[in-house]
Protein backbone atom coordinates (compact mmCIF):
# COMPACT_ATOMS: atom_id res chain seq x y z
CA UNK A 1 0.00 0.00 0.00
CA UNK A 2 1.45 3.34 -1.02
CA UNK A 3 0.38 6.93 -1.03
CA UNK A 4 0.39 7.73 -4.76
CA UNK A 5 1.60 11.16 -5.81
CA UNK A 6 2.60 13.16 -8.85
CA UNK A 7 4.90 16.15 -8.92
CA UNK A 8 3.20 19.51 -9.37
CA UNK A 9 4.11 21.53 -12.50
CA UNK A 10 7.25 23.57 -11.78
CA UNK A 11 5.34 26.77 -12.63
CA UNK A 12 2.91 26.05 -9.80
CA UNK A 13 5.77 25.35 -7.40
CA UNK A 14 7.44 28.60 -8.46
CA UNK A 15 4.19 30.48 -7.83
CA UNK A 16 3.83 28.90 -4.37
CA UNK A 17 7.36 30.00 -3.51
CA UNK A 18 6.80 33.62 -4.46
CA UNK A 19 8.36 35.79 -1.77
CA UNK A 20 9.93 32.73 -0.11
CA UNK A 21 13.55 32.94 -1.23
CA UNK A 22 15.28 30.59 1.22
CA UNK A 23 14.06 27.01 0.90
CA UNK A 24 14.68 23.73 2.74
CA UNK A 25 13.60 20.62 0.79
CA UNK A 26 12.25 17.50 2.51
CA UNK A 27 11.79 14.23 0.59
CA UNK A 28 10.41 10.92 1.82
CA UNK A 29 12.16 7.57 1.77
CA UNK A 30 8.96 5.57 1.49
CA UNK A 31 6.10 6.31 -0.91
CA UNK A 32 7.49 9.23 -2.94
CA UNK A 33 10.80 7.39 -3.28
CA UNK A 34 8.97 4.41 -4.73
CA UNK A 35 6.97 6.58 -7.15
CA UNK A 36 10.05 8.67 -8.02
CA UNK A 37 8.30 11.87 -7.03
CA UNK A 38 10.23 12.74 -3.86
CA UNK A 39 13.19 10.45 -3.27
CA UNK A 40 16.91 11.33 -3.14
CA UNK A 41 17.22 11.85 -6.91
CA UNK A 42 14.10 13.99 -7.23
CA UNK A 43 15.11 16.12 -4.25
CA UNK A 44 18.49 16.71 -5.93
CA UNK A 45 16.76 17.64 -9.23
CA UNK A 46 14.40 19.98 -7.43
CA UNK A 47 17.33 21.60 -5.67
CA UNK A 48 18.90 22.40 -9.05
CA UNK A 49 15.63 23.75 -10.46
CA UNK A 50 15.15 26.02 -7.46
CA UNK A 51 18.73 27.28 -7.72
CA UNK A 52 18.07 28.11 -11.38
CA UNK A 53 15.04 30.07 -10.17
CA UNK A 54 17.38 32.05 -7.94
CA UNK A 55 16.34 30.42 -4.67
CA UNK A 56 18.83 29.90 -1.87
CA UNK A 57 18.80 26.31 -0.57
CA UNK A 58 19.50 26.10 3.19
CA UNK A 59 19.54 22.30 3.04
CA UNK A 60 17.79 19.08 2.03
CA UNK A 61 16.88 15.84 3.78
CA UNK A 62 15.06 12.66 2.82
CA UNK A 63 13.20 11.42 5.92
CA UNK A 64 12.74 7.61 6.06
CA UNK A 65 8.95 7.87 6.49
CA UNK A 66 7.70 11.43 6.53
CA UNK A 67 4.25 10.62 7.94
CA UNK A 68 5.34 8.92 11.18
CA UNK A 69 6.67 10.32 14.44
CA UNK A 70 10.32 9.84 13.40
CA UNK A 71 9.76 13.00 11.37
CA UNK A 72 10.09 14.86 14.66
CA UNK A 73 13.66 13.58 15.11
CA UNK A 74 14.68 14.34 11.52
CA UNK A 75 13.28 17.84 11.78
CA UNK A 76 15.15 18.48 15.03
CA UNK A 77 18.42 17.20 13.54
CA UNK A 78 18.05 19.78 10.77
CA UNK A 79 16.48 22.47 12.88
CA UNK A 80 19.17 25.09 12.26
CA UNK A 81 19.03 24.77 8.46
CA UNK A 82 15.23 24.64 8.50
CA UNK A 83 14.94 27.68 10.76
CA UNK A 84 17.15 29.71 8.45
CA UNK A 85 14.78 28.99 5.54
CA UNK A 86 11.59 30.90 4.67
CA UNK A 87 9.78 27.63 4.03
CA UNK A 88 10.00 23.86 3.68
CA UNK A 89 9.26 22.47 0.22
CA UNK A 90 7.80 19.04 0.86
CA UNK A 91 8.32 16.25 -1.63
CA UNK A 92 6.45 13.74 0.54
CA UNK A 93 2.73 13.07 0.19
CA UNK A 94 0.19 15.28 1.97
CA UNK A 95 0.46 13.10 5.09
CA UNK A 96 4.09 14.19 5.39
CA UNK A 97 3.17 17.85 4.81
CA UNK A 98 0.70 17.54 7.63
CA UNK A 99 3.28 15.91 9.92
CA UNK A 100 6.02 18.49 9.16
CA UNK A 101 3.61 21.34 9.83
CA UNK A 102 3.23 20.12 13.43
CA UNK A 103 6.81 20.81 14.54
CA UNK A 104 8.38 24.08 13.49
CA UNK A 105 6.42 27.24 12.94
CA UNK A 106 7.51 27.54 9.33
CA UNK A 107 5.37 27.25 6.19
CA UNK A 108 5.37 23.83 4.48
CA UNK A 109 4.69 24.00 0.72
CA UNK A 110 3.75 20.78 -1.12
CA UNK A 111 5.68 20.02 -4.32
CA UNK A 112 3.54 16.97 -5.12
CA UNK A 113 -0.18 16.26 -5.39
CA UNK A 114 -1.47 13.27 -3.43
CA UNK A 115 -3.76 11.17 -5.61
CA UNK A 116 -4.86 8.03 -3.79
CA UNK A 117 -3.83 5.13 -1.59
CA UNK A 118 -2.77 2.45 -4.06
CA UNK A 119 -2.08 -1.26 -3.88
CA UNK A 120 0.44 -2.79 -6.25
CA UNK A 121 -1.50 -5.36 -8.30
CA UNK A 122 1.24 -6.20 -10.76
CA UNK A 123 4.83 -4.90 -10.56
CA UNK A 124 4.68 -1.13 -10.95
CA UNK A 125 0.91 -0.99 -11.46
CA UNK A 126 -0.92 0.63 -8.58
CA UNK A 127 -4.68 0.81 -8.25
CA UNK A 128 -6.96 2.49 -5.75
CA UNK A 129 -8.50 -0.47 -4.00
CA UNK A 130 -10.25 1.23 -1.10
CA UNK A 131 -11.85 4.63 -0.66
CA UNK A 132 -12.10 4.05 3.09
CA UNK A 133 -15.82 4.78 2.89
CA UNK A 134 -16.67 3.21 6.24
CA UNK A 135 -19.24 0.67 5.02
CA UNK A 136 -17.46 -2.20 3.37
CA UNK A 137 -19.42 -3.99 0.62
CA UNK A 138 -16.64 -6.39 -0.43
CA UNK A 139 -18.43 -9.34 1.18
CA UNK A 140 -21.31 -9.07 -1.29
CA UNK A 141 -19.32 -7.89 -4.30
CA UNK A 142 -16.88 -10.79 -4.47
CA UNK A 143 -13.97 -8.72 -3.17
CA UNK A 144 -14.20 -6.09 -5.93
CA UNK A 145 -15.01 -2.64 -4.57
CA UNK A 146 -17.77 -0.89 -6.54
CA UNK A 147 -16.99 2.39 -4.79
CA UNK A 148 -13.47 2.60 -6.19
CA UNK A 149 -13.61 0.30 -9.22
CA UNK A 150 -16.87 1.71 -10.68
CA UNK A 151 -16.42 5.22 -12.07
CA UNK A 152 -19.80 6.25 -10.62
CA UNK A 153 -19.47 4.26 -7.39
CA UNK A 154 -22.70 2.40 -8.13
CA UNK A 155 -23.84 -0.24 -5.65
CA UNK A 156 -26.81 -1.85 -7.43
CA UNK A 157 -25.29 -3.16 -10.64
CA UNK A 158 -23.90 -1.74 -13.88
CA UNK A 159 -25.06 1.43 -15.59
CA UNK A 160 -26.04 1.47 -19.26
CA UNK A 161 -22.64 2.82 -20.25
CA UNK A 162 -20.86 -0.51 -19.91
CA UNK A 163 -19.80 -2.08 -23.19
CA UNK A 164 -18.23 -5.50 -23.71
CA UNK A 165 -17.06 -5.47 -20.13
CA UNK A 166 -15.45 -2.02 -20.38
CA UNK A 167 -16.36 1.35 -18.86
CA UNK A 168 -17.94 4.28 -20.73
CA UNK A 169 -15.23 6.65 -19.54
CA UNK A 170 -12.32 4.57 -20.85
CA UNK A 171 -12.39 1.61 -23.24
CA UNK A 172 -9.27 0.24 -21.53
CA UNK A 173 -10.90 0.26 -18.11
CA UNK A 174 -12.80 -2.81 -16.91
CA UNK A 175 -16.44 -2.34 -15.90
CA UNK A 176 -16.43 -3.06 -12.17
CA UNK A 177 -19.89 -4.59 -12.29
CA UNK A 178 -18.97 -6.96 -15.09
CA UNK A 179 -16.03 -8.13 -12.96
CA UNK A 180 -18.29 -8.46 -9.93
CA UNK A 181 -20.90 -10.32 -11.96
CA UNK A 182 -18.33 -12.75 -13.40
CA UNK A 183 -16.78 -13.51 -10.03
CA UNK A 184 -20.12 -13.88 -8.22
CA UNK A 185 -21.26 -16.21 -10.99
CA UNK A 186 -18.11 -18.32 -10.59
CA UNK A 187 -18.75 -18.45 -6.86
CA UNK A 188 -22.39 -19.38 -7.49
CA UNK A 189 -23.46 -16.34 -5.44
CA UNK A 190 -25.28 -14.23 -8.05
CA UNK A 191 -28.21 -13.85 -5.66
CA UNK A 192 -26.10 -11.23 -3.86
CA UNK A 193 -26.19 -9.01 -6.94
CA UNK A 194 -29.99 -9.24 -6.98
CA UNK A 195 -30.27 -7.73 -3.50
CA UNK A 196 -31.33 -4.10 -3.34
CA UNK A 197 -28.64 -1.90 -1.83
CA UNK A 198 -30.11 1.22 -0.19
CA UNK A 199 -28.58 4.68 -0.61
CA UNK A 200 -25.22 4.90 1.12
CA UNK A 201 -24.72 6.63 4.44
CA UNK A 202 -22.15 9.35 3.78
CA UNK A 203 -21.85 10.12 7.48
CA UNK A 204 -20.85 6.77 9.00
CA UNK A 205 -17.93 8.74 10.40
CA UNK A 206 -18.40 12.48 10.40
CA UNK A 207 -15.94 14.72 8.61
CA UNK A 208 -13.33 15.52 9.81
CA UNK A 209 -12.71 11.83 10.45
CA UNK A 210 -10.71 10.76 13.50
CA UNK A 211 -10.53 7.82 15.84
CA UNK A 212 -8.95 7.20 19.25
CA UNK A 213 -7.64 3.72 19.95
CA UNK A 214 -7.75 2.94 23.64
Amino acid at each position, binding site marked *: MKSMTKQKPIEEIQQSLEGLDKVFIVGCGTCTTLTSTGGVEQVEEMKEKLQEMGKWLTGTVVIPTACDDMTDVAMKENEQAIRSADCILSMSCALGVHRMSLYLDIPVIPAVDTLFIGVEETPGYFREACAQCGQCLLGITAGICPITACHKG*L*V*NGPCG*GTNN*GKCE*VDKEKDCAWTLIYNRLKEQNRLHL*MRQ*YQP*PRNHHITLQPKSMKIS
Partner: protein
Amino acid sequence: MVSRFKEALDSGKFVITSEVAPPKGTNLEKMQHHIELLKDKVDGINITDHQSSAMRFPSLGGCLAVLESGGEAIMQMTCRDRNRIALEADLLFAYSRGVRNVLCLTGDAVVVGDHKEAMGVFDLDSLQLINTIHTLAGGKDLGGNDLDGAVEFCVGAIVTPEAQPLEPQLIKFEKKVEAGAEFFQTQAIYDLDNFKKFMDYARKFKTKILAGIVLLSSARMARYMTANVPGIFVPQDLLDEMSAAPKEAMLAKGIEIAGRTIAALKRDAVCDGVHIMAIGREETVPDILAAAGM
Protein backbone atom coordinates in the same frame (compact mmCIF):
# COMPACT_ATOMS: atom_id res chain seq x y z
CA MET B 1 -54.88 15.06 -11.96
CA VAL B 2 -53.65 11.67 -13.12
CA SER B 3 -50.98 10.81 -15.62
CA ARG B 4 -52.42 10.75 -19.13
CA PHE B 5 -49.38 8.77 -20.16
CA LYS B 6 -50.16 6.13 -17.54
CA GLU B 7 -53.74 5.98 -18.78
CA ALA B 8 -52.38 5.35 -22.27
CA LEU B 9 -50.11 2.59 -20.93
CA ASP B 10 -52.97 0.99 -19.02
CA SER B 11 -55.35 1.22 -21.99
CA GLY B 12 -53.42 -1.48 -23.82
CA LYS B 13 -52.92 0.71 -26.90
CA PHE B 14 -49.59 0.83 -28.69
CA VAL B 15 -48.00 3.79 -26.93
CA ILE B 16 -45.79 6.35 -28.66
CA THR B 17 -43.34 8.59 -26.86
CA SER B 18 -40.63 10.80 -28.24
CA GLU B 19 -38.04 13.12 -26.82
CA VAL B 20 -36.97 16.72 -27.00
CA ALA B 21 -33.70 18.20 -25.81
CA PRO B 22 -33.72 21.60 -24.09
CA PRO B 23 -31.48 24.34 -25.49
CA LYS B 24 -28.11 25.48 -24.29
CA GLY B 25 -29.28 28.92 -23.26
CA THR B 26 -32.54 30.69 -22.66
CA ASN B 27 -33.84 30.84 -26.21
CA LEU B 28 -36.64 28.28 -25.98
CA GLU B 29 -38.09 28.77 -29.46
CA LYS B 30 -36.67 25.65 -31.07
CA MET B 31 -37.63 23.43 -28.12
CA GLN B 32 -41.13 24.91 -28.10
CA HIS B 33 -41.40 24.33 -31.84
CA HIS B 34 -40.47 20.67 -31.39
CA ILE B 35 -42.96 20.32 -28.55
CA GLU B 36 -45.72 21.85 -30.71
CA LEU B 37 -44.84 19.45 -33.50
CA LEU B 38 -45.06 16.38 -31.27
CA LYS B 39 -47.58 17.08 -28.53
CA ASP B 40 -50.68 15.85 -30.36
CA LYS B 41 -48.95 12.95 -32.08
CA VAL B 42 -47.42 11.17 -29.09
CA ASP B 43 -48.57 9.98 -25.67
CA GLY B 44 -45.64 11.55 -23.86
CA ILE B 45 -42.67 13.79 -24.56
CA ASN B 46 -39.46 13.00 -22.71
CA ILE B 47 -37.34 16.00 -21.86
CA THR B 48 -33.70 15.05 -21.53
CA ASP B 49 -31.67 15.91 -18.44
CA HIS B 50 -28.32 17.37 -19.55
CA GLN B 51 -28.02 14.58 -22.10
CA SER B 52 -24.47 13.25 -22.54
CA SER B 53 -23.54 15.35 -19.48
CA ALA B 54 -23.67 18.58 -21.49
CA MET B 55 -25.09 21.46 -19.44
CA ARG B 56 -28.39 22.74 -20.80
CA PHE B 57 -31.72 24.27 -19.82
CA PRO B 58 -33.14 21.87 -17.22
CA SER B 59 -35.44 18.94 -17.89
CA LEU B 60 -37.95 20.31 -15.40
CA GLY B 61 -38.10 23.61 -17.33
CA GLY B 62 -38.68 21.71 -20.56
CA CYS B 63 -41.42 19.69 -18.91
CA LEU B 64 -43.20 22.87 -17.83
CA ALA B 65 -43.07 24.04 -21.47
CA VAL B 66 -44.65 20.73 -22.53
CA LEU B 67 -47.44 21.15 -19.96
CA GLU B 68 -48.03 24.77 -20.99
CA SER B 69 -48.48 23.58 -24.57
CA GLY B 70 -51.06 21.04 -23.45
CA GLY B 71 -48.77 18.04 -23.96
CA GLU B 72 -47.86 15.21 -21.60
CA ALA B 73 -44.36 15.47 -20.13
CA ILE B 74 -42.03 12.67 -19.08
CA MET B 75 -39.30 14.18 -16.93
CA GLN B 76 -35.93 12.49 -17.36
CA MET B 77 -34.05 12.60 -14.11
CA THR B 78 -30.44 11.53 -13.70
CA CYS B 79 -28.52 11.04 -10.47
CA ARG B 80 -25.37 12.68 -11.81
CA ASP B 81 -25.87 16.30 -10.79
CA ARG B 82 -27.98 16.34 -7.62
CA ASN B 83 -27.80 14.66 -4.24
CA ARG B 84 -30.86 13.05 -2.71
CA ILE B 85 -32.05 16.30 -1.11
CA ALA B 86 -32.03 18.17 -4.41
CA LEU B 87 -33.63 15.25 -6.28
CA GLU B 88 -36.43 14.97 -3.73
CA ALA B 89 -37.01 18.72 -3.78
CA ASP B 90 -37.18 18.80 -7.59
CA LEU B 91 -39.67 15.92 -7.53
CA LEU B 92 -41.89 17.88 -5.12
CA PHE B 93 -41.66 20.96 -7.32
CA ALA B 94 -42.29 18.99 -10.52
CA TYR B 95 -45.36 17.35 -9.04
CA SER B 96 -46.70 20.67 -7.74
CA ARG B 97 -46.50 22.06 -11.28
CA GLY B 98 -48.27 19.14 -12.96
CA VAL B 99 -45.49 16.80 -14.05
CA ARG B 100 -46.80 13.26 -13.62
CA ASN B 101 -44.17 11.01 -15.23
CA VAL B 102 -40.52 10.50 -14.36
CA LEU B 103 -37.89 8.44 -16.15
CA CYS B 104 -35.18 7.46 -13.67
CA LEU B 105 -31.63 7.23 -14.99
CA THR B 106 -28.22 6.92 -13.41
CA GLY B 107 -26.84 9.45 -15.89
CA ASP B 108 -23.78 9.52 -18.11
CA ALA B 109 -20.39 10.13 -16.56
CA VAL B 110 -19.47 13.77 -16.12
CA VAL B 111 -16.25 13.34 -18.12
CA VAL B 112 -18.09 12.51 -21.36
CA GLY B 113 -19.74 15.93 -21.28
CA ASP B 114 -18.77 19.58 -21.56
CA HIS B 115 -17.99 20.31 -17.90
CA LYS B 116 -15.27 17.73 -17.45
CA GLU B 117 -13.98 19.13 -14.16
CA ALA B 118 -17.37 19.02 -12.44
CA MET B 119 -18.11 16.60 -9.61
CA GLY B 120 -20.24 13.57 -10.47
CA VAL B 121 -22.69 13.23 -7.61
CA PHE B 122 -24.31 9.75 -7.88
CA ASP B 123 -25.52 9.99 -4.28
CA LEU B 124 -28.36 7.77 -5.53
CA ASP B 125 -28.50 5.41 -8.50
CA SER B 126 -31.41 4.86 -10.89
CA LEU B 127 -32.79 2.05 -8.76
CA GLN B 128 -32.62 4.04 -5.56
CA LEU B 129 -34.28 6.96 -7.36
CA ILE B 130 -37.23 4.72 -8.29
CA ASN B 131 -37.50 3.74 -4.64
CA THR B 132 -37.22 7.37 -3.57
CA ILE B 133 -40.21 8.33 -5.72
CA HIS B 134 -42.28 5.57 -4.17
CA THR B 135 -41.16 6.71 -0.72
CA LEU B 136 -42.28 10.27 -1.51
CA ALA B 137 -45.55 8.88 -2.88
CA GLY B 138 -46.05 7.21 0.50
CA GLY B 139 -45.90 10.60 2.19
CA LYS B 140 -42.37 10.34 3.58
CA ASP B 141 -38.97 11.66 2.54
CA LEU B 142 -35.74 9.68 2.60
CA GLY B 143 -34.98 11.07 6.04
CA GLY B 144 -38.13 9.36 7.32
CA ASN B 145 -39.98 12.66 7.82
CA ASP B 146 -43.65 13.22 6.99
CA LEU B 147 -44.48 15.23 3.89
CA ASP B 148 -47.26 17.80 3.88
CA GLY B 149 -48.59 16.69 0.52
CA ALA B 150 -47.14 13.69 -1.31
CA VAL B 151 -46.37 13.02 -4.96
CA GLU B 152 -47.91 10.61 -7.46
CA PHE B 153 -45.82 9.81 -10.48
CA CYS B 154 -45.83 7.18 -13.17
CA VAL B 155 -42.26 5.89 -12.74
CA GLY B 156 -40.12 4.55 -15.53
CA ALA B 157 -36.60 3.37 -16.19
CA ILE B 158 -34.40 2.22 -19.01
CA VAL B 159 -32.96 -1.10 -20.11
CA THR B 160 -30.42 -2.03 -22.78
CA PRO B 161 -31.55 -5.21 -24.58
CA GLU B 162 -28.38 -5.36 -26.72
CA ALA B 163 -25.89 -4.93 -23.85
CA GLN B 164 -22.85 -7.19 -23.79
CA PRO B 165 -22.75 -9.03 -21.46
CA LEU B 166 -26.54 -8.97 -21.11
CA GLU B 167 -27.20 -10.79 -17.85
CA PRO B 168 -25.85 -8.08 -15.47
CA GLN B 169 -28.23 -5.61 -17.18
CA LEU B 170 -31.13 -8.03 -16.84
CA ILE B 171 -30.44 -8.45 -13.13
CA LYS B 172 -30.69 -4.66 -12.80
CA PHE B 173 -33.83 -4.64 -14.97
CA GLU B 174 -35.46 -7.10 -12.59
CA LYS B 175 -34.41 -5.01 -9.59
CA LYS B 176 -36.01 -1.97 -11.25
CA VAL B 177 -39.25 -3.88 -11.88
CA GLU B 178 -39.24 -5.03 -8.28
CA ALA B 179 -38.67 -1.42 -7.13
CA GLY B 180 -41.78 -0.40 -9.04
CA ALA B 181 -40.77 0.74 -12.52
CA GLU B 182 -44.08 0.83 -14.37
CA PHE B 183 -42.56 1.30 -17.80
CA PHE B 184 -39.24 0.93 -19.58
CA GLN B 185 -37.92 2.85 -22.54
CA THR B 186 -35.16 0.77 -24.07
CA GLN B 187 -31.85 1.77 -25.60
CA ALA B 188 -32.07 1.83 -29.41
CA ILE B 189 -32.97 -1.50 -30.97
CA TYR B 190 -32.48 -2.39 -34.64
CA ASP B 191 -32.32 -6.18 -34.70
CA LEU B 192 -35.92 -7.32 -34.34
CA ASP B 193 -35.04 -10.97 -33.79
CA ASN B 194 -32.76 -10.05 -30.88
CA PHE B 195 -35.41 -7.72 -29.50
CA LYS B 196 -38.08 -10.42 -29.74
CA LYS B 197 -35.86 -12.71 -27.68
CA PHE B 198 -35.52 -9.95 -25.08
CA MET B 199 -39.30 -9.45 -25.09
CA ASP B 200 -39.90 -13.20 -24.59
CA TYR B 201 -37.97 -12.73 -21.35
CA ALA B 202 -39.37 -9.29 -20.40
CA ARG B 203 -42.99 -10.38 -20.89
CA LYS B 204 -42.64 -12.43 -17.72
CA PHE B 205 -42.58 -9.23 -15.70
CA LYS B 206 -45.42 -6.88 -14.86
CA THR B 207 -44.22 -3.73 -16.59
CA LYS B 208 -44.60 -2.02 -19.96
CA ILE B 209 -41.81 -1.96 -22.54
CA LEU B 210 -41.42 0.79 -25.12
CA ALA B 211 -38.80 -0.08 -27.72
CA GLY B 212 -36.20 2.59 -28.35
CA ILE B 213 -36.16 3.80 -31.96
CA VAL B 214 -33.19 5.99 -32.84
CA LEU B 215 -33.38 7.57 -36.29
CA LEU B 216 -30.44 6.64 -38.51
CA SER B 217 -29.64 9.92 -40.23
CA SER B 218 -26.73 8.66 -42.34
CA ALA B 219 -24.66 5.54 -43.00
CA ARG B 220 -21.76 7.16 -41.17
CA MET B 221 -23.86 7.83 -38.09
CA ALA B 222 -25.12 4.23 -38.14
CA ARG B 223 -21.58 2.84 -38.34
CA TYR B 224 -20.40 5.21 -35.62
CA MET B 225 -23.19 4.20 -33.23
CA THR B 226 -22.71 0.49 -33.65
CA ALA B 227 -18.95 0.88 -33.14
CA ASN B 228 -18.97 3.37 -30.27
CA VAL B 229 -22.24 3.65 -28.39
CA PRO B 230 -22.63 1.13 -25.57
CA GLY B 231 -25.56 -1.22 -26.12
CA ILE B 232 -26.31 -0.20 -29.71
CA PHE B 233 -26.03 -2.80 -32.44
CA VAL B 234 -27.01 -1.96 -36.02
CA PRO B 235 -27.11 -5.21 -38.05
CA GLN B 236 -25.07 -5.42 -41.26
CA ASP B 237 -28.12 -5.51 -43.55
CA LEU B 238 -29.30 -2.15 -42.19
CA LEU B 239 -25.79 -0.69 -42.51
CA ASP B 240 -25.74 -1.91 -46.14
CA GLU B 241 -29.19 -0.49 -46.78
CA MET B 242 -28.15 2.92 -45.45
CA SER B 243 -24.88 2.85 -47.41
CA ALA B 244 -26.70 1.99 -50.64
CA ALA B 245 -28.94 5.06 -50.39
CA PRO B 246 -27.75 8.15 -52.30
CA LYS B 247 -26.42 10.81 -49.94
CA GLU B 248 -29.41 13.12 -50.37
CA ALA B 249 -31.82 10.26 -49.70
CA MET B 250 -30.09 8.85 -46.60
CA LEU B 251 -32.28 10.68 -44.12
CA ALA B 252 -35.39 9.51 -45.97
CA LYS B 253 -34.01 5.96 -45.83
CA GLY B 254 -33.46 6.32 -42.07
CA ILE B 255 -37.04 7.54 -41.65
CA GLU B 256 -38.28 4.59 -43.72
CA ILE B 257 -36.30 2.10 -41.59
CA ALA B 258 -37.56 3.66 -38.34
CA GLY B 259 -41.13 3.67 -39.69
CA ARG B 260 -41.13 0.05 -40.80
CA THR B 261 -39.49 -1.06 -37.52
CA ILE B 262 -42.29 0.62 -35.57
CA ALA B 263 -44.92 -0.85 -37.91
CA ALA B 264 -43.49 -4.36 -37.43
CA LEU B 265 -43.35 -4.02 -33.64
CA LYS B 266 -46.97 -2.87 -33.60
CA ARG B 267 -48.25 -5.41 -36.12
CA ASP B 268 -46.74 -8.36 -34.23
CA ALA B 269 -47.56 -6.85 -30.82
CA VAL B 270 -43.93 -7.40 -29.86
CA CYS B 271 -43.92 -4.73 -27.15
CA ASP B 272 -46.20 -2.11 -25.61
CA GLY B 273 -45.05 0.84 -27.67
CA VAL B 274 -42.06 2.76 -28.93
CA HIS B 275 -39.91 5.64 -27.78
CA ILE B 276 -38.67 7.61 -30.79
CA MET B 277 -35.37 9.44 -30.45
CA ALA B 278 -34.61 11.58 -33.49
CA ILE B 279 -31.60 13.22 -31.81
CA GLY B 280 -31.33 16.71 -33.30
CA ARG B 281 -33.89 15.95 -36.03
CA GLU B 282 -37.08 16.10 -34.00
CA GLU B 283 -38.93 17.60 -36.97
CA THR B 284 -38.76 14.19 -38.67
CA VAL B 285 -40.80 12.41 -35.99
CA PRO B 286 -44.16 13.07 -37.72
CA ASP B 287 -42.62 11.64 -40.91
CA ILE B 288 -41.43 8.56 -39.02
CA LEU B 289 -44.93 8.07 -37.64
CA ALA B 290 -46.38 8.50 -41.12
CA ALA B 291 -43.91 5.94 -42.45
CA ALA B 292 -45.13 3.60 -39.70
CA GLY B 293 -48.69 4.11 -40.93
CA MET B 294 -49.73 5.99 -37.83
